[in-house]
């Protein structure tokens, strides 16, 4: 009799708590940040397509679905390390198809050579090129991500990539490489 009672009581309790937990899981459901979103937040958003995907978000989605994490050339080793941390894997070296030079650059149009074909404007993923048909184009340097997607479409090769100059504002302390100037 006691055994039955015990089973009954515990069973009832289990039901009640189960119902509470079930309700809570529905009521207080937290929308988890999907992996693709997290990867997308790490990527440098140059939208350069060097990974073989049309933009950073598609690559983030591909990474979430098992694509190799070492294809982001502008991000370089840092980005690979961050994604590896996020996914809990060993950081592989950068895909050898890409240049290792990921120093920040900005596109520049040699304006006397520009014929105003608008091809670069169509190629720019972030609308950083200003101009119209048969008018000289120019790059809005602050908006340029340095993806160099505008280089190939240019029929007169008037676009060049210029490394961003070091200024006291973006200068990084480097203890091993303090610019030692010979004092006169």
């Amino acid at each position: 009799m006691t055994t039955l009672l015990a089973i009954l009581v515990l069973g009832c309790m289990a039901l009640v708590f189960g119902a509470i937990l079930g309700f809570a899981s529905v009521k207080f459901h937290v929308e988890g940040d999907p992996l693709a979103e997290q990867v997308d937040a790490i990527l440098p958003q140059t939208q350069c397509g060097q990974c073989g995907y049309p933009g950073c978000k598609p690559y983030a989605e591909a990474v979430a679905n098992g694509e190799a994490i070492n294809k982001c050339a502008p991000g370089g080793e840092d980005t690979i390390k961050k994604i590896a941390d996020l996914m809990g894997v060993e950081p592989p070296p950068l895909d050898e198809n890409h240049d290792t030079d990921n120093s920040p650059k900005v596109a520049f149009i040699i304006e006397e050579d520009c014929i105003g074909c608008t091809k670069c404007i169509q190629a720019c993923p972030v609308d950083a090129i200003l101009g119209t048909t048969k008018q000289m184009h120019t790059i809005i340097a602050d908006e340029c991500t340095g993806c160099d997607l505008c280089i190939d479409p240019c029929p007169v090769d008037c676009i060049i990539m210029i490394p961003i100059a070091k200024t006291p504002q973006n200068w990084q302390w480097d203890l091993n490489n303090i610019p030692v100037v010979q004092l006169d």
Partner: protein
Amino acid sequence: MGSVIERIKRANFWTFHGGIHPPEQKFLTTDKPIRAVSIPEQLILPLQQHIGIAADLRVKIGDKVLKGQALTQSMHPMAVPIHAPTSGTITAIKDAVIAHPSGLSELCLFITPDGEDTWQERHICTDVSKLSHNEIIDKISSAGISGMGGAGFPTQVKISTRDKIQFLIINAAECEPYISADDLLIREHSPSILDGINILDRILSPEHILIGIENNKPEAIKVLQQATANNEKIQVCVLPTKYPTGGEKQLIQILTGQEVPSGVFPSSLGIVMQNIATCFAIADAVINDIPLIKRVVTVSGQALQKPQNVWSLLGTPVGFLLEQCGYPNKDKKHIIMGGPMMGYSLPSDQVPVVKTTNCILAPSEQEISSPYSTGTKEVECIRCGQCSDVCPSQLLPQELQWSAKAKDHQQLDKLNLFDCIECGACAYVCPSQIPLVHYYRVAKSEIRQQKQLDIKAEHAKVRFEARKERLARDKIAREEKHKAAAQARKARMNSGTSEAKTEKSAVAAALARVKAKKAQQTQGSDSVAAQTVAPPADNEQKSQVSAAIARAKAKKLAAQKNVATYKSEPENKLDDVKPTADDKKAKIAAAVAKAKARKLTEKNNDNAVDSDLAVDDNITNEAAVLASQAEAVVPANDKKAKIAAAVAKAKARKLAEKNNDNAVDSDLAVDDNITNEAAVLASQAEAVVPANDKKAKIAAAVAKAKARKLAQQQDKLAATPSEEKTNKHVKSEST
């Protein structure tokens, strides 16, 4: 609140955590008055000498400028103008090494003084009380005053606060070793400083004014106490000497007991702090209309023969000041800008004095060894914890150091790296000589850079998404526009105006033309036949050509007819074909085909196992022959078509052979027959059609492929007897 003032009056101050007592070394300069140095040969004025942004240039190369003339101007609150320190000519505007640890260059104005030191017109204000608040703030702003203690925050921003101010704190602590510029300034110019404090009092109207000064400046304290004796509002607070008392947050904590929370301006706590040298500059600007063009600089260090405080014009090269103070070390210079704790080694002695330069240090090798000559003496951290004992911000320097080395930015954030004031106390006490502050500076700049990149990435993402959206929108808009245009056209045509009618008739005419062409192509048989009957017998070449074309067409037609008649009367077909083939070439081809067909028949007969099969094969072969003949007749003029026909023929033969070999019983052979017929029909159709058209050829090839497939399929189907029967039935019908 009363208790705070009472405590201050009793000189019972609070204290801050940690702090150190380095050798003061102030005796080198405190015993000498401030010296006015001569005007150097060239002044170098960086456009930006403060925290914020540079103002816009108002002069060009070759301009004559007067002393006190504004060289840059801007309406931006964080942009502070600069002024000509003396009269002269602008000789260059170019990048030059500036007072920054990186040794990088920035845009600078080069002025060659004319030596006359001519002032621009000045408006000396005799009665400050007549000026409104805004007029005073305007004067301060246009005089280019930024904080002169070290950070260089624009003063007019600091004093334009709308918060209710309880304490105005004047920072005269000057806690860093060697520096005595403020000490000397107080001793020599206390009336002006007091004027400045009174102006600030008017603008901010604080409840109390506290002057914080360390007890190692007895003369300055005495002067200040005398000057403020009849002013109840101002309290001179003599503080115990401890580094870094002069830090903003530390001084606030000592005087009021309040800790300024991380990331908050003191003004939100009702506190504004100004350096005592800034007060002097404010008085000069508001009363004497003298913009910020000079400042007191302590030029000190044991390497100098005559260390002294000097009145230096802004833009004076450091090398010039050192020369004035007797610097013997010509070949191996080690110069520090700022104090020994927070300063940095200069890359060049052509770096100019700027608004924030309070000290230039030229130490001897024994005092402070040059980092370039000795290299680092850093050894491993021994976890002694002295650094956290002395940290005035109560951080954990050794943990910070490890995280900074590992570039663990998240952990650095958790350890509140950005609350570090870089005072250098931790590095000073470190027994392992770890340059801790350097590691923090590296980490800070990395984190700042990363934040910038993150902001840029987010911005790029937004723009990318916006562009994608725009492209999609444009596409829809374009489609809709096209639809609308089409509808408009239709509506216009149906509207009944004369214009519409002409348009309509034009379209109708075009349509009619297209239809006519089509009709000609499909049922050309009759018309072509009629044409062949009456070829025009003109002498002209053109008509001949057209006649030839007509002949070819007639031939084609004949072939087509053969196809039509083939099913009912295969035996008569040869006769039908022959008369039409009036071409010599076609005749030869036909003959060859006939011969081949005969050969094939003989061969098949030999191989035939029973009579039925033989009959079937015969029929098959005949079909093949017919096909080949038709092919041979048609493409008389076209080489390519001939080749195609030949290929088709070869295929038909192959198929026939294969079927014969495989044929085991009559039923199966029957199926093959049908297959072959299909193939023949296909090849005939091909042969007829593609005479002129390449595309048609391709279509024919596709048809051939299909026919082949069909044949294979039927071979397979032949395995089931029921289907064999049906096929047989079909066969009997066709024959």
